Each structure stands twice: as structure tokens, then as C-alpha cells.
């Protein structure tokens, strides 16, 4: 069995080094592939180096640890088992509740050796399961499905890891105000078929045309009715009623056909489970 590989994402240099040292002590055979200093770098490095373990700090510049995990899982190649993810946090009261509920392991800063040892043992046990000789595909599918479920419920805890405190639930949006030149278009949310993230903007697509608004999907999401608008990818939120069909290919990838638009929308593996027959 080749040595186990890991990646650490932590923006505070001292803490990154400390975690590296403690890990070496607790798990000498572990090979550290990279130390990433922010969320975007973590995603980039993880996808390039494909480590088996990810230690992700929650509050980082750029993407938070949770958003980084989402991006890694969505873009992870099909032929490799998903990495095991451990979140590291100083204090996130909302995250802690979610972590308790999920089986995802997490570490609290300052990281204590005994706790880290237990975490490593758990990871070793999980990795051993991945390498069960009989029917490796099935074992992987089960483990992956568990990880996806955990990640979904973590991401559902809104404002998690973001710098803003999750205080009052946001008011629901009724009209999208999109400015084009000197004109502000008042687009009723009822007419929006889907929202798509585009760099620092969000594309708002109706049956007839599309608009750009200067906001992020992260800020927009809490203002949408969760029953009506389904997230299908980290960059896409679609109105459930606008979807005509969900097509699943041989590899399990899902695409959505819309009623009033020609384009197909890809569903990430994180959300594919939502499109199953009743």
C-alpha cells in the first residue's frame, strides 16, 4: 500500500506549521503534499495533487473551507475515490452543531495531540475500508454517498464559516433589480428560471432574456425560497418548476432539460441524489 497523502489548508502560517508537526508525530507515514494558504489555493492544489486527506480550515480568505470542500468534491475526477475531509476551526457555533450531527471529523483549534491521534485512527480505519479487496466499487460508492450527504447538510447550514454572523433569516426576494446602463429592470422572482454564478456577478435567466446583477450566489441563496429554488451546483440554482426532465448518463452524471430554455444544466454529484424517481 502506497503512503497516504494529505493536504493542509490554513491561512495562518504558524497554525499550518503546527498542524503539520503534530500530524507528523501522530502519523509518521503520512505524506504531506501541500500547504495551501487560502480556499482557492486549496481547491487548485487538491485537484492537481489529488491527496487522500484534506485538512481544511473553515475561515480562510477567498473560499471558506466548506466552499472549498464543495468545489473539490464537485470537480473531483470520477476514477479516484473522493478525499476524506477533516474541518479545522477555532470556534464556529453553527458549524459545531452540524459537525456533531454528521460523521465528518473535525478538529478544534488549538489542536490537542490526543484528539488529533483519535482523528488519525479514524481516518486510517476509513481508508482501510476504501481498500477492501472485494467489490471495491461498491464500498467506494457507499463511502462517497455518506460524504456527499454530510457535505450537503453542512452547506445547508447557511452563513457557515462566512465572516458574517448568521443572525436573522433574510427576507425573501420578490423582485430582482438588475441595472442595464441607466435603466433598472425590475424582474419578478417568479419569472426567473435559474441563477448562475459568473465571476463577481450572478446571471439571472428568464424565459425571454438574461440579466447580470452584482452580487454573489452566496448572498442570494438565503433570500430565495428553498422549496422553489434548488441548488444543483455550487454555481447554479434552478427553479424546480422550470425543470422538464433530469437525464442520467452511464457514469451517473445528471443533466437537466428546461421547459422554456434550450440549454441543459449540469447537476453536480453533490446534488444529483435529489433527482430520483419518487
Amino acid at each position, binding site marked *: 500500500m502506497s503512503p497516504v497523502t494529505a493536504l493542509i489548508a490554513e491561512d495562518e502560517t504558524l*497554525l499550518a506549521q503546527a498542524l503539520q508537526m503534530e500530524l507528523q508525530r501522530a502519523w509518521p507515514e503520512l505524506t504531506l503534499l501541500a500547504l495551501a494558504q487560502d480556499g482557492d489555493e486549496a481547491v487548485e492544489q487538491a485537484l492537481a495533487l489529488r491527496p487522500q486527506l484534506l485538512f481544511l480550515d473553515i475561515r480562510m480568505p*477567498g473560499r471558506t473551507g466548506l466552499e472549498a470542500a464543495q468545489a473539490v468534491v464537485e470537480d473531483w475526477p470520477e476514477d479516484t475515490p473522493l478525499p476524506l475531509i477533516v474541518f479545522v476551526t*477555532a470556534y464556529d457555533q453553527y458549524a459545531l452543531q452540524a459537525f456533531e450531527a454528521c460523521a465528518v471529523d473535525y478538529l*478544534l483549534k*488549538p489542536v490537542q495531540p490526543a484528539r488529533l491521534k483519535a482523528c488519525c485512527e479514524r481516518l486510517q480505519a476509513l481508508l482501510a475500508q476504501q481498500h477492501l479487496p472485494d467489490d471495491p466499487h461498491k464500498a467506494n460508492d457507499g463511502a462517497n454517498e455518506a460524504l456527499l450527504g454530510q457535505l450537503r447538510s453542512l452547506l445547508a447550514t447557511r452563513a457557515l464559516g462566512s465572516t458574517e454572523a448568521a443572525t436573522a433569516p433574510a427576507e425573501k426576494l420578490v423582485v430582482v433589480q438588475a441595472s442595464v446602463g441607466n435603466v433598472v429592470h425590475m424582474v419578478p422572482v417568479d419569472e426567473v428560471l435559474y441563477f448562475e454564478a459568473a465571476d463577481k456577478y450572478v446571471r439571472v435567466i428568464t424565459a425571454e432574456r438574461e440579466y447580470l446583477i452584482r452580487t454573489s450566489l452566496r448572498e442570494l441563496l438565503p433570500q430565495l425560497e428553498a422549496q422553489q429554488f434548488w441548488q444543483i451546483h455550487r454555481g447554479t440554482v434552478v427553479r424546480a418548476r422550470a425543470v422538464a426532465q433530469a437525464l442520467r448518463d452511464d457514469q451517473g452524471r445528471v443533466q437537466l432539460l428546461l421547459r422554456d430554455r434550450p440549454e441543459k444544466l449540469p447537476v453536480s454529484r453533490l446534488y444529483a441524489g435529489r433527482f430520483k424517481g419518487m
Partner: protein
Amino acid sequence: MSKPSHQPSIGWRLQLWRGFWPTQTLSAIVGLLFWAMGSPPVITMVYSLLIGNFCHLFITLGRYGLPMVLRRWWPSRFAHMDQGFPGMLPMLPVLALGVLLAYLAGTTIGDALMGLSSPMPWHGSNRGALTVLVISMLPAIAGTYYFASRTRLAALETQAAEAQLRLLESQLEPHMLFNTLANLRALIGVDPARAQVMLDHMIDYLRATLTASRQSHHPLSAEFSRLTDYLALMQIRMGERLQVQIDLPADLAALPVPALLLQPLVENAIKHGLEPLRRGGTLTVSARRDGQTLRLQVSDSGAGLDSSSAAPAPTGSGFGLTQVRERLRTLHGERASFSLAPAPQGGTLAEVRLPWPAAPAFPDPLPARP
């Protein structure tokens, strides 16, 4: 108060009990007044106490009952009506009805006790009854008003205590605390000398935060020292990403300023301005005299105001900034102000303008630490 309370601050039973002795006093005074106007003393006192206590009972029940009934029947209009005191206008019919019922109940029992007959034992005319009713109204209104204000006051004190707690919580933000401890733990292994320096900054910061609630003002030099402690902690954490410039002219060092007023502004600048940027940036804290105004500025070269949020929910409405505004308003009213704006060179500029103090309250300045 803008905050509607759905729960009565105290229950009606407690309210009845609290009002017991004041009711006896008020009733006795009314009895004495009637006595002075020529009524027989013992009888007057018995009726006055009876009517007074029934007034207290009925009006208290009305105060709690009316909002309950209204909220149940017209939830759309009266959902936010305060239980325990629905406001002076809705209270008028409650008062009138309460006094009338109290008069009827009081005289009936009084008649039975004294062996007399109503409407008024000492006059026997309807005008007398009317006089008693009107005169009973006045202490009833006064009493109701008094109890209602006391209830309000208690609620306000609770709110103030809660705000104090939130202030402390925001200053001892657990995320900052545990991250700092984690850094300290890491430093002890690799650089014990630096770990000690960090611990010293942390001790000063904690002490200042915990004593700030008891101390309303301190010299500007002390304010800057506390910020230096905090920034030193953050610099160990953020490393090269946080550059700090502190600019305090020597002649301003002794001026009194509200304790830890700038702390939330500095935290804000780091959290929203510099921390989200991978390259970090520079944070500048400065003090200037501008005529009769003391200008305190906290600026960062960071992410800027609109990049974090284009939506109308500004991060600037957070508790820290609200707290700065509230403190300024309480201390100086219109003479102090606070603004948050894009900095000319990019990033964000927060500025507090304080009225120039008449005389420095701290003639012997503490030397500002480097």
C-alpha cells in the same frame, strides 16, 4: 421602545402583589382627603380601601386581559400589543370600567360591613356617587401610570444588561480568542521568547477588555496602547499580511476618550477589509485635531465597502458599529459623529469625530507604548 415584547415583562399575579402596599397608601390618602372634606373618618377609610383595592384588582386584570383578548381576536392589528400595558389610550376604557366595577363592588361590600346603604353612605345622592367615581379615577390613572413606567424601567434595565453582555462577548470574540491561543500553543514550541511577548500582549488586552466596562473614559494614549496590544496579537497570526501604522501626536496623548471606542472599528477593518484578502494590507490608526473637533481615524487598504456586499444588507450595520454609534450618541448627542466611507486610496475609512474636551481629564498622561 421599538422592540415589541410578546411576553409580559412580569406576570399579572406578581403585578398584583407588587401593587399591594402602594394601593393601601393611595387609598388611605384618598380616604384622608374625603375626611378633610367633612366625611366621617372610619367609614370613609373602609370604603376608600375597599374601592381602592378593587380598582387595583380590576385595572390590573384589564391591563393584562385587554391585550390578550385583542391579540387573539385581531392578531393582524394587535399582535405586537404589549401585555401589561397596552398604552395610555386603550387603557382609558379599562380604567373607566375598572373604577366603575370597583365602586359597585366596594360599596356593596362596604354596605354589608357597615350596615349602610348605597349609593353613597354619607351623602345619599347620585351626585355624591359621581364625585367618588371621578375622584377614584385620578389615583387610578396615576397608579396605573406609575406601575407601567416601573415595568418599563425594569425592562430597560434588563436590555441594558443584555447589551453590556453582548459588548463583552463581541470584545472577547471566541473565534479570536481560540485562534490566538492556538498560535500561542504553536509558538511555545518553536519560539518561546516570542510566545512570552504574545502572552503579555494578550494579558494586557484581556485586562483592558474586562475593565473597560467599568471605566467610561481613559486617555487617548491608553486607547492606542490597547489597540497596539490587539494589533500585535493579530500580526502574529496574520504575519506579513497585516501591516500597522499608528499615529498619535504627543499633544493629544492625554485627551480623555471613551474606553475602547475604536476597538470595534479596528476589528471590523481586519475582519472585513484585510482578512478576506490573501495579500492582506495596511491598517492605519490616527488622531488629529481639527479646530474644535478631535478626529480619530481607522483606515485599511483592504477589500473596500462594496466588494463584500452589493446587496442592501450592509455588513456595516453589525453590532460593533451600532455600538460605536450608540455610545457616541449617549455621550455627546449631536456633537459627535461617526462615518464609514471608501478610503481615497482604496479600502475603507472609519472616522469618529468627538467634540474637543474643555480640559484634559488626565493631566498626567501615561506614556504611550511603542
